[in-house]
């Protein structure tokens, strides 16, 4: 058989003639062998539009997420902005030793975990409950109005949200204290009291994001096969039973995916809102890792120490998200990857 890729120039004439005769006799065509390289080129020729569409996202990730990772090495260096990242001397784990010997940092880690745990406990179920409640509203106009009202806070800037909260909890003229006054209770300056920071912070987060967060779960509910409900109706299930036995189990994969993502962000307490709501009087309960990094890194100029704290944050989040994903895959067949 004649092979197009074979260099036939060096073959004896008899062999070439014999091969040509054999090819004519069998009347078979011969093709260049396919390799993974030729297949990849064919694939790119066929699907190049998809790669063009993907390119901006990849470029964004490279420029804003992967390239900055180069700077992470300052967590292990005695960094000076004059010497630069490459020129600064290595100091090993010195910054981490300082970090874990710093009471304020450890307090910030504790606060981050406590606030995140409260967020997870109250903030995570809130959009699910909202979505389930919206799903039960049959009147279309009422449903749309209610949804718009709860989505709105998401579109308000954190600065405005913080302003509203500060005003609402103000010791004089704040609506909360006015209501307390109706019941004969003394006015409380909530935002200067450490014990009130976490409830106010978590409550504000729920108010701002629960409505918008419910969209994902509403979409998941919309994807549930309607005949499951019809079948349950014929079987005699009421709406409560349908919610527990059909809706919630059906959207469980979505709930688990959102939970894994949430756990991945457990160390990322809403930095802006904390900065806007906390004050030295409430640092005891309000100072979180990110605000500590902000104060140490940007305000005190200890970039290397702040980078070490940031790296610690990222490693904890990475371990948590891996663990959550593995557990979810093992026990519920649902996982992010």
């Amino acid at each position, binding site marked *: 058989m004649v092979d197009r890729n074979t260099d036939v120039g060096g073959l004896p004439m008899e062999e070439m003639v014999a091969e040509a005769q054999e090819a004519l006799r069998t009347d078979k065509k011969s093709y260049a062998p396919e390799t993974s390289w030729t297949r990849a080129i064919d694939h790119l020729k066929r699907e190049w539009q998809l790669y063009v569409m993907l390119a901006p996202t990849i470029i964004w990730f490279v420029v804003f997420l992967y390239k900055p990772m180069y700077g992470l090495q300052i967590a292990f260096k005695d960094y000076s902005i004059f010497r630069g990242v490459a020129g600064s001397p290595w100091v090993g784990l010195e910054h981490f030793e300082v970090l874990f010997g710093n009471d304020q940092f450890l307090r910030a880690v504790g606060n981050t975990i406590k606030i995140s745990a409260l967020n997870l406990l109250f903030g995570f179920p809130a959009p699910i409950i909202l979505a389930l409640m919206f799903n039960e509203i049959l009147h279309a106009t009422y449903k749309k109005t209610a949804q718009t009202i709860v989505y709105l806070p998401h579109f308000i800037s954190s600065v405005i949200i913080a302003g509203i909260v500060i005003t609402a909890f103000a010791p004089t003229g704040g609506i909360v204290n006015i209501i307390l006054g109706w019941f004969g209770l003394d006015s409380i300056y909530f935002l200067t009291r450490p014990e009130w920071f976490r409830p106010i912070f978590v409550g504000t987060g729920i108010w701002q994001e629960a409505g918008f967060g419910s969209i994902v779960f509403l979409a998941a509910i919309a994807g549930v096969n309607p*005949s499951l409900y019809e079948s*349950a109706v014929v*079987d005699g*299930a009421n709406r409560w039973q349908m919610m527990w036995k059909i809706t919630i189990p*059906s959207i469980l994969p979505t709930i688990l995916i959102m939970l894994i993502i949430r756990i991945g962000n457990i160390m990322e307490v809403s930095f802006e809102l904390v900065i806007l709501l906390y004050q030295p009087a409430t640092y005891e309960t309000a100072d979180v890792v990110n605000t500590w990094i902000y104060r140490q890194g940007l305000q005190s100029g200890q970039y290397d120490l702040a980078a070490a704290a940031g790296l610690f944050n990222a490693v904890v989040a990475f371990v948590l998200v891996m663990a959550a994903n593995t557990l979810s895959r093992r026990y519920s067949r649902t996982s992010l990857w």
Partner: protein
Amino acid sequence: MAGVSLSGIVKRYGGLQVVHGIDLDVAEQEFVVLVGPSGCGKSTTLRMIAGLEEISEGDLEIHGRRMNRIAPKDRDVAMVFQNYALYPHLNVADNMAFGLRIRRMPKDQIATTIADTAAILGLTDYLERRPADLSGGQRQRVAMGRAIVRHPKVFLFDEPLSNLDAKLRTQMRAEIKRLHNRLGVTSVYVTHDQVEAMTLADRIVVMNEGRIEQVGTPMELFNHPANTFVAGFLGSPPMNQMKAQLTETGARVGKADIKITGAINGNAGRDVIIGIRPEHVSLRPGDGTTPLPIALDLVEPLGSEALLHARFGADEMVFKAETQGDISHLHGVSEVHVPANLVKIFDAETGRALSLEP
């Protein structure tokens, strides 16, 4: 007392009326199939029986009790859905037990019922599996099992086989038939597949545009269609229909006179449609047959028989012929023979079957 009785059932969505006064009695233990093209109102009618759609007008009775305002759960019906409606997060046993648990049946009784039903349906080895791990046929069986365990007075089937491939559909059709013979539960079955209707039904209800066109046994409908719609809907391929004019001796189609049975009397000159079933045509002349000259267009071999697509004058016709293992002799066919007693006559205007006095 009828198992299910529908009197003047109407369904409206706002100003749009989709079911126009259905009257139907389904006897106890009877298997009735509602058949018709998409949008004819058959599924809506079934859903009204189930209680999943409100009845706009008319009366629905199940075992003599008016059901219009009764909740679906209290109608004592069980429904098998087109897409099976199995709960993906529950295994086979839990899917089948769902309705029983809702009704608070004791656990040991549920276990016994599930085991018995699974044995009937050949699902015993699959009770721990989830629907995603089952084949289409197995899922279909689970859906039926979920209906059976309830021991309802009426089974409702909404195109339960339409998601299966042709081979599995034939197999499941036979299983449903056997199951009905064994359980003897009144069943109302919706399908758009006339083969399913013919093979399963004790009686077929042919529907079109929200109305019943004809009710009868499969062979009644096949042999004596009430109108051109039924004639065209049942049978595969459907009945050939041609415009004709009655004469003193038969029916004139183009230049040909086709013999028919029955007295023409004063009907000569009347415009009609004549119907000839593909399988009633013969390649050889016989007693009382009319030869029709045809221009053969295409021969489709089906194995033991073949479909002959041909032109007869301006009309396109399809005939069935036996192949006897070879179709070469069919390519030269230029004439077919139509037996007079099997030619159907319909009024050209109304499409209704005409019965000429013998």
